[in-house]
């Protein structure tokens, strides 16, 4: 008697839901991403001991190695412009947590450049969140 050969079904990977999975991942990344406003490639951060973790903020001021100043990633000419910009962003905010301004500065920049900027942020009512790197040798000292 002849036995009927069962038809072999070609193995197929189910790809129908791949697009859905990919879009779910995309939505996840969109919601959790923080787009970098500042180009930090030209900023070598200073190091110190006993630093704490800082929360990301909407307002940022940075000074690169050439002394160029940036407010929220846009180049600005003077500390006065930074003061006006920070004051505008912080208008109506009273709690210290809401007035944080992320400050990045290259470690080699001279005080004649960064000190007026620090003063401008404080005059505008900002609380400076100075970004740096944890230095292990500094904590041992």
């Amino acid at each position, binding site marked *: 008697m002849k036995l009927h050969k069962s038809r072999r079904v070609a193995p197929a990977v189910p790809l129908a839901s791949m697009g859905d999975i990919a879009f779910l991942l995309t939505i996840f*990344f969109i919601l959790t991403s923080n787009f970098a406003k500042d180009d930090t490639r030209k900023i070598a951060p200073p190091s110190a001991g006993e630093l704490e973790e800082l929360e990301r903020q909407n307002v940022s001021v940075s000074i690169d190695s050439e002394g160029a100043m940036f407010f929220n990633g846009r180049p600005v000419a003077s500390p006065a412009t930074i003061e006006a910009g920070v004051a505008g962003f912080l208008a109506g905010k009273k709690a210290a947590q809401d007035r944080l301004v992320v400050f990045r500065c290259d470690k080699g*920049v001279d*005080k004649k450049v960064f000190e007026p900027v620090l003063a401008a942020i404080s*005059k505008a009512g900002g609380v400076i969140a100075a970004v740096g790197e944890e230095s292990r040798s500094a904590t041992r000292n």
Partner: protein
Amino acid sequence: MALARRREQCELEIPTDSVSDIAFLLIIFFILTTTLNKLSGFTAELPSAAANQQQAKSDAKTPTVQLANGKLLFDEREVSMAALRERLLDLRLANRQGEERIVMLEAAGQVDYQTYYEVMAAISAAGGVVAIVEEDE
């Protein structure tokens, strides 16, 4: 003709084969642009510059850190960075209130941000409030 009417109508479909490719390209974009590193540093609320100057003149007892041409002075005595941290901790600034927490920071001559940052971090870690004394032009 009847034959023409029977012509099968093609079902209209949106081509979705490349949707997953597009989505994965977006994922790769977001992975590359996401910053996973966390910010570290310290927070400091600086009193206004004008108030600092008045404070410096009126209150001689306010602890003062001076940076001048590579030298670090605490209350006009040269100290190392480690000694400065100890001296600031000894002041127990965190237990004080209001203006008693202020530590004046005065820089003269050429001072880079690295040195300035270390001093500010030390003052903040000790619970002090940094008050910048700006150099007169």
